[in-house]
């Protein structure tokens, strides 16, 4: 039997492996396999932890206070130091550099899905209009992954036409009073807002909410700090457990894949670093599914390309990222509302902006997050009043505060790409070359203005937007995109250069819609694994 190796245990790798196993193949899944420490106090709320933990400062800010955001820093929050799944430039194995692009990845089992904001959205024909893909195939794959992932949400609302492939299987998460107020405001002005191309609805979230289930969400308000009851979907927990139920599955961790070995238009093996012994090793294989995340997949592909085609510039055909803008706002009618001690921390509402703008998908995704629990000092410091009044104002207005997160789509350009660097190391690092186009900047400005106007109509006082640097939203794609040319793959994810190599993650996307990626990554991996022939 052919030796099939899936590289990466994130949402793409896990769903590719499970699909192959369900087709009856034996599958090996390789990853670095890091894990996080257990999240403490499974039922305690975010604020309860402050009295229950022995050292809450170390938990919330880190023992060296590295999550303390300095006064003049641009960011509004830092990732919880207690979460260990994320790696960046500071990690020895993270071989990406850039002056303009902040890059993150994960060496943990489950990959970046460990930090998924749980928003479940599906692409539609419009989102993938320029993809060389039959949408019927994608629909079938969405159906399969929706059955694997618990989805909490309404069966029908104004966003349903844009999320047709999402089928909720769990009751929608509970809303806070401010969420409900916004929905009421929306209902009152719905006709006008719809005319402006604005739809407000409840988020579809990958979380177990059915109280009959043991792992149901307890609204502890700690989603960002790591769901202590595993209510939020994580491929490392549920999908890999399903994989282990198949006799042909073999999970091999502590393997950081550097490159593939290839000859005669076929991949013949894998070169990897044994992270336990720090030795570089090689193993033969017959079929490879690359699902290491768009950045790593691109890097592995480039190192392989350099071996077989030294005459070609070792650069990818693309690199895409969703530009990320936050717009703080205040729901005027919610001022003075008491704080709610239990809530679902991630966004519970979604604002969809509908409106054709030539060359871009019709749906622009915006998540409305109302503050329930967070580390607040950067927000207090940002208020342009003295600290005493800022502190008092902030906590008086907290239940009325919100932030709209806008995700802008991206397209392949000849400028944005990964470039393999020469270097003295054991393998080559990769430079990420990225800049926004003037056309996209204009699109971002228009999108921000539309959201500000919509929030105003919903009874909110809106503040200036905060733009994150490229890469900060962690939505990367298009490093080995579908299309023509030997640096690309076909519509079924098969590499145009190597007949037995499949691009099972977002690296294969030839454009990047605004919608949250994760469900579509799972669907793409499933579709690729279903269509693969060997």
């Amino acid at each position, binding site marked *: 039997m052919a030796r099939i190796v899936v590289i990466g245990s994130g949402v793409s790798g896990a769903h590719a492996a499970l699909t192959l196993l369900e087709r009856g193949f034996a599958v090996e899944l390789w990853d670095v396999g890091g894990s996080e420490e257990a999240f403490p106090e499974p039922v305690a709320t975010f*604020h309860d932890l*402050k*009295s229950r933990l022995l050292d*809450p*400062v170390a*938990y*919330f*800010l880190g023992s060296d*206070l590295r999550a*303390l*955001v*300095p*006064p*003049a820093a641009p960011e509004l929050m830092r990732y919880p130091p207690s979460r260990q799944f994320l790696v960046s430039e500071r990690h020895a194995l993270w071989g990406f550099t850039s002056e303009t692009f902040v890059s993150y990845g994960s060496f943990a089992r489950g990959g970046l899905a460990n930090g998924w904001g749980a928003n479940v959205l599906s692409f539609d024909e419009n989102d993938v209009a320029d993809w060389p893909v039959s949408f019927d195939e994608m629909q079938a794959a969405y159906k399969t992954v929706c059955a694997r992932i618990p989805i909490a949400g309404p069966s029908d609302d104004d966003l349903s036409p844009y999320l047709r492939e999402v089928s909720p299987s769990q009751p929608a998460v509970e809303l806070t009073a401010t969420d409900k107020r916004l929905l009421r405001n929306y209902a009152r002005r719905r006709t006008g807002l719809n005319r402006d191309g604005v739809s407000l609805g409840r988020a579809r979230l990958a979380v177990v909410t059915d109280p009959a289930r043991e792992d149901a969400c307890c609204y502890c308000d700690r989603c960002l700090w790591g769901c202590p009851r595993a209510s939020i979907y994580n491929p490392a927990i549920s999908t890999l457990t399903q994989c282990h139920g198949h006799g042909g599955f073999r999970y091999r961790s502590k393997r950081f894949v550097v490159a593939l070995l290839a000859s005669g238009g076929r991949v013949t093996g894998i070169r990897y670093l044994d992270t336990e012994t720090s030795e570089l090793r090689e193993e033969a294989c017959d079929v490879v599914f690359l699902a290491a995340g768009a950045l790593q997949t691109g890097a592995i592909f480039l190192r392989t390309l350099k071996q077989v085609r030294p005459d070609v510039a070792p650069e990818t055909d693309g690199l895409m990222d969703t530009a990320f803008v936050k717009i703080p706002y205040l729901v005027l009618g919610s*001022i*003075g*509302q*008491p*704080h709610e001690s239990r809530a679902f921390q991630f966004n519970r509402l979604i604002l969809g902006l509908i409106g054709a703008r030539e060359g871009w998908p019709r749906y622009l995704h915006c998540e409305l997050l109302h503050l329930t629990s967070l*580390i*607040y*000092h950067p927000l*207090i*410091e940002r208020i*342009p*009043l*003295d*600290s*005493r*009044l800022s*502190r*008092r*104002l902030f*906590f*008086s207005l*907290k239940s009325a505060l919100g932030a709209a997160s806008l995700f802008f789509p991206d397209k392949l350009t000849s400028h944005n790409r990964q470039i393999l660097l020469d270097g003295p190391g054991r393998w080559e690092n990769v430079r990420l070359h990225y800049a926004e186009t003037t056309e996209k900047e204009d699109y971002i400005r228009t999108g921000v203005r539309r959201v500000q106007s919509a929030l105003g109509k919903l009874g909110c006082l809106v503040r200036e937007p905060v733009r994150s640097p490229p890469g900060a939203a962690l939505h990367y794609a298009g490093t080995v995109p579908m299309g023509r040319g030997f640096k690309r793959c076909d519509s079924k994810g098969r590499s145009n250069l190597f007949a037995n190599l499949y691009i099972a993650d977002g690296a294969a996307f030839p454009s990047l819609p605004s919608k949250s990626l994760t469900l579509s990554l799972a669907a793409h991996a499933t579709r690729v694994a279903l269509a693969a022939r060997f």
Partner: protein
Amino acid sequence: MAVLFPLWQIDRKEYDAICAYLELTPNAELFGRLSAHLANAPFHFPCPEGFSRFLAELRLTRFRVARLDYFTKLWSPNHPLRHALNGVVALHECDAAGYRELAAGATGRAVFPQLAVWVLEFLLRVGLTVPWLGWQAIRYTLLMPFRPHSSLASRRVLITGVSRGLGMDIMLECLERGANVVGVVRDAESLARVRALLPVESPVFLLNADLARPGELVAALQAAQVQPASIDIAVLCAGVKHDGESALALASLRKTLEVNCLSAAEFAAWFAKQNAESHPASNPSLQPSTGSRMQSAPPDRGVRYEPRSLVLISSMGRWHGMHGSGGYNASKAALSIWGESLDMELRQSSDPRFAVIVVEPGMFESDMTQRTTLTKLLFVSRRDVARRIISGVLAGRRSIRPPAWFALLTWGVCLAGRGFRYRLFARVKASRKE
């Protein structure tokens, strides 16, 4: 943690003042964490300049915190007070009791009258702040010509004798101004002590060399691959004093001369010789450092070449003899005269390489001075002496004698003749024995 960087760190009373202003109950454990956090601030954030720095030097009281808070938020977002206020809020929000205090406030309709009161209070604070800031601006205008300050950002300073006393204070002053430091201590025990004292992120490279042994300092620098061209300022501060010993105690005299004077000559010879070989004017690939530790800086970053300095820490004692301190005073006299001669020699050449600055501090808190009635009156803060030395070096002065009044007093005593000096210093010696 001790307050090493008074510009950035706050002491317990200042922390209490901030807590009172923010309506929080002080918490000793949180204060300890804040203090350790702020001790690393000089290595991450730019040193405030001008009026902002002048305000940062004020001791914090509740009144001053209220005055400075809004001003710094609007005009100086990286001001040390902002880090302290932000740090207090960040730490207290992680604590259950602290969070309850922070989040306390009315709900429902009662919020609106409360907001109105808070806004009025805020306006009152602004009303008080404007004239106070005006007064501080006048003080700043009047005082700053006498308190020049320059940044040492991106510059590397070598300092000997950093394990205690003036050497330690000069090192802390340099670190607070953004320098990165190569510190020399006598032995491994001192090295461990200094390392334990400094914040973990301090850009300090410590070397171990006993200056009483000829050639050991230069050997240690060479062994650590410290290139002289990477050092912008060398402050030779290490010194020994054998109090109460006869001027005829030859072993002590030799050791004193070796540490206090001859080691400086050895270092300068190496410094000058190496500079001749690798001076930036003749070899542009060897430029002064720009903030990276030791030899990690790439050679061709095209940084601006700054004038370089050799700073010799002598003493006002070099102007006269003294009971029981003859060797020390003689060694400092030799150091001052030799330093001046070296400077003349270098200035005469077409390629001066570096300036030699002779520092002759007067009375200040030191491990080598004893606290007597007289010295208590004459003391100036050791950190203040360090500040004046570094400011003087950066202002391009060739001789620095802090405090000035003590230099005038010393010269007055010298002019009064040997008989007067004999009687005066005999009385000082007698008062020390008491």
